[in-house]
């Protein structure tokens, strides 16, 4: 990008900033005259005249202004707001400013910079990393018996937090702090692998349907509709009572039932990218289908793949916990957070809070962190926010 172009771009950025400021001001102004304009309604045009009108309507929405100015495709705005767990995400985020005359930044550095400027995401990442490390490395420092159920039964049961057991013991005599780490290993590993399966299947299915289109796409989408209308948990139970609940099957079953929503999102992406100019250009130059999928469609839908994949891991951990509650999860002496909580909630009536709240806190923090990270990843990939 030439220096002139870059100046031009930064001028645009400045314009957008000013525009959104003006918008905020106009809204303040607007708020004060609510009652008046309520009464007069449409006649405001005549009454206020052109200048006043300018204040109201010049920039109805900063995002629309941004779209108009920078010339981003309307689709980007759609993507920005249609998604279910979506945030505009620009607020509180330092848009990278233009460097003076130095080399254009590498893509991954730009992404990293946007990610690091999102404080919520950075906090979530650190907290999540700490919990993961705690679960996998913690047991080496805080050694407890987590595998011998008989030995555990000789330990004091339902013991409140004390020096020997920082978080107490549960009704089976397991030390709860150690148990949280041990269960976390299962929850996190299973969630990760099941999430990977869902994202792999979802991507493959969505890419094929979206890229080839036509009858194949229609057929595959109807099939997806059918699968999506089966209530998830019922199917999960049906599959597990047929296949059994070893660790491998749990991963497979959760993975095999979780990818339908992903496929739909990826398919939308593939359908769109297939018809964009660069894909058409590649096609006109004689590129094969596989080449276009590999070099154009896949790299350009990676944003949704990664984002959706992140949410899938959270969903897989949640699904595993539901199965744990139903007694179909991991079998004792191994355990996961859901199974552990199931034992704990039974003790709530006795007031043994330490068997419930610590696990719940860890569990909820992990899921919330993963979801916030997913949100931030979506922001990263959002082309509009990136330095050009």
């Amino acid at each position, binding site marked *: 990008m030439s220096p002139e172009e870059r100046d031009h771009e930064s001028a645009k950025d400045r314009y957008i900033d000013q525009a959104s400021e003006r918008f905020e001001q106009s809204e303040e102004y607007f708020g004060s005259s609510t009652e008046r304009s309520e009464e007069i309604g449409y006649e405001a045009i005549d*009454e206020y005249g052109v200048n006043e009108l300018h204040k109201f309507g010049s920039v109805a929405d900063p995002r629309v202004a941004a779209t108009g100015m920078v010339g981003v495709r309307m689709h980007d*705005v759609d993507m920005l707001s249609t998604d279910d*767990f*979506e945030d505009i995400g620009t607020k509180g985020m330092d848009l990278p400013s233009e460097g003076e005359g130095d080399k254009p930044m590498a893509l991954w550095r730009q992404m990293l910079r946007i990610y690091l400027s999102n404080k919520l995401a950075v906090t979530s990442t650190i907290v999540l990393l700490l919990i993961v490390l705690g679960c996998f490395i913690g047991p080496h420092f805080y050694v407890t018996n987590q595998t011998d159920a008989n030995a555990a039964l000789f330990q004091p049961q339902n013991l409140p937090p004390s020096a020997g057991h920082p978080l107490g013991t549960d009704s089976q005599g397991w030390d709860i702090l150690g148990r949280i780490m041990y269960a976390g290993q299962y929850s996190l590993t299973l969630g990760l692998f099941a999430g990977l399966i869902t994202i792999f299947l979802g991507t493959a299915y969505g890419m094929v349907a979206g890229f080839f289109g036509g009858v194949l796409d229609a057929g595959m989408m*109807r099939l997806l509709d059918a699968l999506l209308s089966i209530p998830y948990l*019922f199917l999960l139970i049906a*599959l597990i*009572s047929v296949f059994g609940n070893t660790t491998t099957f749990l991963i497979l079953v959760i993975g095999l039932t979780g990818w339908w929503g992903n496929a739909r999102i990826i398919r939308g992406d593939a359908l769109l990218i297939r018809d964009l100019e660069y894909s058409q250009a590649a096609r006109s130059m004689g590129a094969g289908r596989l080449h276009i999928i590999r070099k154009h469609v896949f790299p350009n839908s990676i944003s949704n793949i990664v984002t959706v994949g992140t949410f899938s891991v959270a969903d897989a951990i949640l699904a595993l916990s539901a199965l744990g509650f139903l007694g179909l999860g991991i079998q004792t002496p191994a355990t996961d957070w859901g199974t552990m909580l199931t034992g704990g909630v039974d003790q709530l009536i006795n007031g043994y809070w330490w068997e419930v709240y610590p696990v719940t806190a860890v569990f909820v923090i992990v*899921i919330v962190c993963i979801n916030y990270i997913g949100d931030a990843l979506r922001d990263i990939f959002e082309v509009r926010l990136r330095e050009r």
Partner: protein
Amino acid sequence: MLSYVVRRLLQGAFVILFVIIFSFSLSYLQPHGALAPAYILCGTHQTTACLNEYINQFGLNKPYFVRLWDYLFGVVVHFNLGHSYKQNQSVGQILSIFIPRTFWIAFVSLVLAVVISLPIGVYQAWKRNSVFDYTATGILFVMYAMPAFVLGFLLLSAFSFHTLHLPNSPPEGLHPWAMFTDPVSFILPIATLTALSIAGLSRFMRSSVLDVLVQDYIRTARAKGCSPRRVLFRHTMRNALAPIVIIIGLSIPALLSGALIVEEVFNYQGLGYETVQASLNQDVPIILGITIVVTILTVLGNLLADLGLVVINPRVRIEGSVR
């Protein structure tokens, strides 16, 4: 419009057909495959005589397609979903007891969830990036992250064990109208199920309203000098409502999954409770029957949502399609 409705009906029929075939094929995957019922019914004394008796009785050694056809024919024409392995009843009889029970709690919760989450989502979008928006988002994220059963038990602990002393379980017995004879005992299950749906629904509503807020006609309305209130209720809400109706339809499977957990937590015998019991007993016909019925309920719910959309959105009426 008529063609749209007919197309949706055909799609629904296809989905139901698919699920029946899918569920039936699933039963071939259990240990011993097609012969599994005989093995399960014979239990510990799996002599050849016992196995053969059941194999002949149910025709288990017939080819896959013959059995599939019989099953399909039975389900579609006679609503015959097979016979339970463990309870001496047909699956249809068992389900006819449980369907209304689950329907009531799911229906009431859905209505409540919509009524509560609609204003939250709309206000969040209207005042986006405000303190309210961030707080609500945070709370909803936590609610979304909480396992359903933990939420149920926490409510139970708070409002049944420690304060208020609400009943911790709906009454025993299988009366489908229990909901109306003893409404107090349904407060906690329904509150849990409602809370489960709110997180997702209000999030959808927020983004649906956001979608509308960036449209040109909203800018025009503002430019013409409409008051914010008028912009919100006249221009935004009307247009945001259409996607919301679809979303309500699409949230039914999640609602029923939530109902499964809630029934289990509060010991309420409904479809979910029965599914779990059946799965612990390896009573595959019941599980498959429930999966099919629950899917049919979902498809019907979606159809209703689509028809509601026809009423609300003139574009569907005229063009015969959404978008």
